[in-house]
């Protein structure tokens, strides 16, 4: 990476990291002249585009898989196999539409799972009521 590109990336990340807690700035629905191009780029950045963000070393772990994680993976793949969604919309929904808080805050397959539930509702295969009734029914099996 050239030093000028590096400088641009660093500046971009510097702005990005200030966006979430910037409530003290008068930036709510600003006039067009109050947003420069660098801020436009920062606001329209996808939160899953994490390459190059600063972070500290962690312990690299392997992980046992939960039953629900395995089943979630399979459900998502089979939904695609049977044409309910394609790779592009899966990615957009799982990585972008969830928003940064859920993207970083939920387990990996937690995002997949919420997204699988949402696709069924959004494409009107099920209603929200059917979903919540089913959730209640499943929960009762464990009581």
């Amino acid at each position: 990476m050239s030093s000028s590109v590096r400088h641009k990336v660093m500046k971009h990340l510097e702005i990005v990291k200030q966006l979430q807690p910037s409530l003290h700035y008068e930036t709510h629905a600003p006039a067009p002249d109050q947003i420069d191009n660098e801020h436009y780029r920062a606001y329209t950045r996808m939160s899953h585009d994490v390459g190059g963000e600063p972070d500290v070393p962690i312990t690299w772990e392997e992980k046992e898989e939960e039953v629900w994680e395995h089943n979630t993976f399979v459900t998502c793949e089979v939904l695609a196999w049977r044409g309910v969604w394609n790779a592009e919309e899966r990615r957009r929904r799982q990585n972008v539409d969830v928003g940064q808080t859920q993207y970083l805050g939920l387990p990996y397959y937690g995002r997949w799972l919420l997204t699988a539930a949402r696709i069924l509702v959004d494409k009107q295969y099920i209603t929200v009521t059917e979903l919540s009734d089913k959730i209640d029914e499943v929960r009762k099996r464990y009581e």
Partner: protein
Amino acid sequence: MAEKHKPAPMVEEVSEFEVLEIAVRELAIEKGLFTAEDHQRWTEYMHTLGPLPAARLVAKAWLDPEFKKLAVEDGVKASLEVGIDWVNSMPTHFGTPSDYCNLRVLEDTPKLKHVVVCTLCSCYPRPILGQSPEWYRTPNYRRRLVRWPRQVLAEFGLQLPDDVEVRVEDSNQKSRFIVLPVRPEGTEGWSEDQLAEIVTRDCLIGVATPKPGKTANDPRPVRPAVNPYHH
């Protein structure tokens, strides 16, 4: 007092993830979006996957210069020789529904080390390498590998001299990668089976290099599951 004699609950408190997973799967089946058999067939297909075909591809490439040439030029075609069909794979017969059928084989040299990441999500060559490890999916690995590759590789126990160039390959939706490492010294005269044994998953991702006698990934802490899936 009666409270004391209440039987212990059959299960611990069920997690919202477990409840939602069952709900979504059952609703999809009830609505005819897929069948329980589809789900079962996919699970069985998952059981057939692992790093062995990719390890065998590397071993073949070490033994046969012509096959190595093919592997580097056309990873998909080379995969057929280790039993992996990217284009017509089971169980869909139209390849993976995640929509990728382009495998690139990245050839290391003594002065060039490749390592694979997916900065945007967790793209991984599942048909030939199985499920990705948890660390590969972490934002941490994805953030840092592209910017501090030498440091990250050192954390995996791979110290590279300064005169070895590191090339980080960022996966994407359509293209997947495996690393073809340098055949290590001390493996002269080895059979394909012997060679394949030292090509671990970590070697194929690029965070380790093969060594005679080393047939497993470096030991790491394993985070246990609350309700583990038994493969």
